[in-house]
C-alpha cells in the first residue's frame, strides 16, 4: 500500500462528513526492513496511529507463521513508529503457537515491554483451515498447540502487563496512559461503524435512507469484483441484513462482556430502554449459578 490512496480516502471521508481533528486514524502495518520514510509518508497523509503486526520476536516462529519480517525488522519498525507517532503505537503479540513454551514466550513479552509504546494486543493462535500451518498440524509435522500452556501464558502475561502499568480493558487488549484504541472500543460498545473495502463489515442504521433500524452489511470479498462493483454501482456492498432487536442485544452482550467495565446499566438502556438487566437476566437459573460461582456479576 502507498500513502496517496490513504490520503485520498481520508479526504473523501472528510468531504462527506467532517472529521473531527482528534479522530483516530490507525494504520495496520506489517514490519518491514526499511520502515522510516514510508511511515513518515503515511503520517503526512493523515495517519496518526499505528498498529504493528509484530506477532513474535522469535525468527523461527515468524517463519512458522509465514511472515516475511524478522524479529529485528519488527523492533526497528517499532522504534521508528514510536518516533513518528509517540504514544500512539500498538503492537500485536501472539501466544499459543505450536511447540511454544511458557518461559521463552514470557521472555518475548519482557523484551517487548522494554521497548513498546502504550498499547499491546495479545492473541492466541487460531488455526484456520486452508492455511499451511493448519495442514502441518493436521499431518503431524507440527505439534498441536497446547491449550494448557496457552492458558498459562495468558495468565502470566496478564500479570506481567499489570505490573508494567497496563490496564486490560478488553480480553485481548492492554493499554497504559489512557492509550485505548478508539475504533476498537466502538466495536465492543456496539457503536455504529461503516466498513468499506473488500470483505468489510459494517453496522449502522442508514438514516440517510430514512431507516432507524441498524443493518449488518458486508462488502464483496474478492478485491477485483469489489472494484468492478464500485465502479459500476458506486458501492461494493454485497449484503444488507437488518439487525433484529434481539440480535442487536445479543451483540451488545457478547461484545460488552469482553471489556473490563462490562455492560453498565446505562449502556444497556441505550439499546433496551424498557427492560433493565435485572428484568432480563435476574430470573435465569444459569445466571444464578454463574453468580454463585463468582463467574458473573449482575
Amino acid at each position: 500500500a502507498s500513502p496517496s490512496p490513504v490520503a485520498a480516502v481520508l479526504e473523501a471521508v472528510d468531504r462527506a462528513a467532517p472529521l473531527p481533528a482528534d479522530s483516530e486514524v490507525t494504520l495496520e502495518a506489517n514490519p518491514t526492513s526499511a520502515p522510516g520514510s514510508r511511515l513518515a509518508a503515511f503520517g503526512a497523509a493523515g495517519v496518526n496511529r499505528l498498529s504493528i503486526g509484530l506477532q513474535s520476536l522469535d525468527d523461527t516462529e515468524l517463519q512458522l507463521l509465514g511472515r516475511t519480517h524478522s524479529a529485528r525488522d519488527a523492533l526497528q519498525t517499532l522504534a521508528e513508529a514510536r518516533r513518528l507517532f509517540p504514544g500512539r503505537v500498538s503492537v500485536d503479540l501472539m501466544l499459543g503457537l505450536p511447540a511454544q513454551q511458557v518461559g521463552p514466550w514470557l521472555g518475548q513479552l519482557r523484551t517487548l515491554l522494554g521497548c513498546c509504546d502504550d498499547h499491546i494486543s495479545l492473541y492466541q493462535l487460531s488455526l484456520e483451515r486452508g492455511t499451511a500451518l493448519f495442514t502441518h498440524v493436521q499431518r503431524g509435522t507440527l505439534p498441536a498447540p497446547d491449550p494448557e500452556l496457552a492458558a498459562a501464558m495468558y495468565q502470566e502475561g496478564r500479570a506481567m502487563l499489570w505490573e508494567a502499568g497496563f490496564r486490560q480493558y478488553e480480553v485481548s487488549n492492554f493499554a497504559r496512559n489512557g492509550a485505548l484504541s478508539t475504533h476498537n472500543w466502538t466495536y465492543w460498545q456496539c457503536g455504529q461503524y461503516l466498513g468499506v473495502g473488500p470483505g468489510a463489515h459494517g453496522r449502522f442504521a442508514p438514516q440517510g435512507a430514512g431507516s432507524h433500524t441498524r443493518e449488518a452489511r458486508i462488502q464483496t470479498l474478492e478485491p477485483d469484483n469489489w472494484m468492478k462493483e464500485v465502479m459500476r454501482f458506486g458501492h461494493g456492498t454485497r449484503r444488507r441484513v437488518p439487525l433484529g432487536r434481539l440480535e442487536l442485544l445479543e451483540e451488545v452482550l457478547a461484545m460488552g462482556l469482553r471489556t473490563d467495565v462490562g455492560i453498565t446499566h446505562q449502556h444497556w438502556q441505550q439499546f433496551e430502554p424498557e427492560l433493565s438487566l435485572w428484568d432480563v437476566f435476574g430470573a435465569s437459573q444459569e445466571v444464578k449459578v454463574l453468580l454463585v460461582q463468582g463467574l458473573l456479576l449482575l
Partner: protein
Amino acid sequence: MWTPVGRGRWHGRALTVWAAAAAHRGLLEPRPTPTREAAAKSRTLDRLYSSADRKEKIDLSRFSVENIRNFSIIAHVDHGKSTLADRLLELTGTIDKTKNNKQVLDKLQVERERGITVKAQTASLFYNCEGKQYLLNLIDTPGHVDFSYEVSRSLSACQGVLLVVDANEGIQAQTVANFFLAFEAQLSIIPVINKVDLKNADPERVEKQIEKVFDIPSDECIKISAKLGTNVERVLQAVIERIPPPKVHRKNPFKALVFDSTFDQYRGVIANVALFDGVVSKGDKIVSAHTKKTYEVNEVGVLNPNEQPAHKLYAGQVGYLIAGMKDVTEAQIGDTLYLHKQPVEPLPGFKSAKPMVFAGMYPIDQSEYNNLKSAVEKLTINDSSVTVHRDSSLALGAGWRLGFLGLLHMEVFNQRLEQEYNASVILTTPTVPYKAVLSSAKLIKEYREKEITIINPAQFPDKSKVTEYLEPVVLGTIITPDEYTGKVMMLCQARRAVQKNMMYIDQNRVMLKYLFPLNEIVVDFYDSLKSLSSGYASFDYEDAGYQTAELVKMDILLNGNPVEELVTIVHKDKAHSVGKAICERLKDSLPRQLFEIAIQAAVGSKIIARETVKAYRKNVLAKCYGGDITRKMKLLKRQAEGKKKLRKIGNIEVPKDAFIKVLKTQCDK
C-alpha cells in the same frame, strides 16, 4: 446392564442356522444323472427359493422309503462341513465339478465373509450304489451353541449324522456339543476325520480321541480330505450302509415337522418340512399344532438345492410347503402340521425361542429411526428367534431392545443390518435377563406375578421389596491344551464360575466344565479365553437355568447428580471393577466444563469408584474486528443450538456422544 464390554468374539465359529436347520428335502424322480442345468443354476447365488429353474412337477410316489437317507453334517467350526458338502454335491452330480465350488451353500454375504454358515440350506443328492438309486438328503448345518435348539429340531428329522473332526485340531468344544445333540436324538453317527492332507494332520491321534470321548470304535472313522476330494466317496457309501432309512408310515395320517421357514415377498411363508407320516399335496387343509390355525396348501416340493415343485410329498421325505401363511411366526421351528380333522400327537420338544442376550439398538440419529425400524422388521421377518421390544433411552432416544439367542446371533444380526440394509446403529452393551422374586404385595399386584424378569435396569426393584434376585447361568465346556489349564481356570474363577468337571481327553488336552453366570460370558470372555490360550482353547455353553445372586443397582453420578441413562445392574462382587470402568470411559468422553466434574459410581449411598475431569480454560483470545463479530455471533448461535441438544445433568452439559461412548459395545481392533 451397561457394563463396558468387549464384544465376545465368536468369529469363525460355525453358526447353526437360527431359522432352522434344514429338513431333508423331498426326493427327485429317479434319473441316472441329474440335469446339468439344475447343477449350473445352483451355482448362481440367487436365493434358494427362486423359481428360476422350475420344471414340471415331479412325481415322488415312486420312490421307496428304503432308498432314502436323511442326514446332517455336524462339526466344530472350520473343520470342513461346508467343504465336505461341496464335495458331496459334486460327487453326486448335483452341481458341476469345477474349481469354483466353494461353500456353494453359503449364500449370504455375511456367511461368506465370516466363513460361517448362517442359513443352512438343504440339498437332495442322487446316488447310485450297487445298482440302486438312492436319494440322500443333506443339510449343511454349522453347529453353534446359540442355536442348539434349531439344531436339535433339524436333527430330529435325520436318522444319522456325519461328525466331522479336523485331523489336526482334533476334538473341540463344539464337536462335543454337537455329538451330544446327535446322541440324544439317537442318531447313527459316522465319524469323519477331515483335512488328512495337511502337514500336521494326525488322524491316528484323533481316532483315539474319538474312541475315548465318544466311545466309537476307531475302525468306524473315515479319513478324508474334503478339499482334495480324497476318500469322499467312501462317505457316501457309509451313509447308505450305516444310516437307516426313516421309519415312517405313508398310510398314516399326515404328520410333519417344521424345520425352517422363510418369507418370500411374493409367495408368503415357505416352510421346510419333514414328513413323519402320511402324504401332503396341493389343496390339502392343514393345521398348525401350536397356533391351531388352518391353512390350505398351495404348493409342495423338494430342494435340489433350488426349489423343485412336486405333486405330493410322502412320509420320510423332506421338502417345502407353501400354505398361505403370512408371517414366519405362523410356521415356527419345531411345530407339527397335520391334516384338518385328523389331529395327531404333536412331535415332542417344541418350544418358543428363548433369548439369552439382550442389546439395546438405537439409530445414530433420531432422524434415522424409520429407516432402522423397517430394516429390523425385514431382518426379523426371516428370523423368528429375535425378540423385539420397543425401548427408549434418555440419552439415545427411541430404539429397541432386541433379544438374541446368543452373542454370535447378535453380532451377525448387526452385521447383516449394516451390510444388507445400510443401517448404522448404536448397539449398547449386551445385558442378560435377570429375575427378581418379589416380596412386596403391592408390586406383586402391579406385575401380576411373584417372579419378574428385569430387562431394563431402570426396572430393578429395590432390595427391600425383593426376597431374592436371580441371574441366568450356563454350563460352559472348555477344551484346551494342557499347558493353559492353569490360566484358563484362573480366568473362569475371575468370572465367578464354579467348576463342575475336569477330564483329560487325551495326553495333551483337557476338557473343563464350569457353571458360569451368563453375564460374565457376554462380556469378552471368549476373547480373553482365546488370547490367553494363544487361540487353542475352544468354548461352548448351554442354558442352565437361574441361580440366586447378590445383584445391586449401580448409579453413576456427575457432581452428585445421578445419570439415569447409565444405571447398571451388577453383581455385588463386580460392582467396583464395573463402576471403575464406566467412570474411566466417562472421563475420557465428557467434554471439560468451566468447573471440575466429579464422576462417581455408587451403590445405594456408598461411592465405589471415582474419576475427575479437570476444569477447562476456554480461549476467547482472538481478534475482534467487524468481520469477526459476525463470525463470532454465528459461532455463539450454533453453540447455543448445540447446547439445547445437550443433556444437562445438574449444570454439566453432556453431549450425546459421551453417552454413546459409554453405552455402546466396545469395538474390537
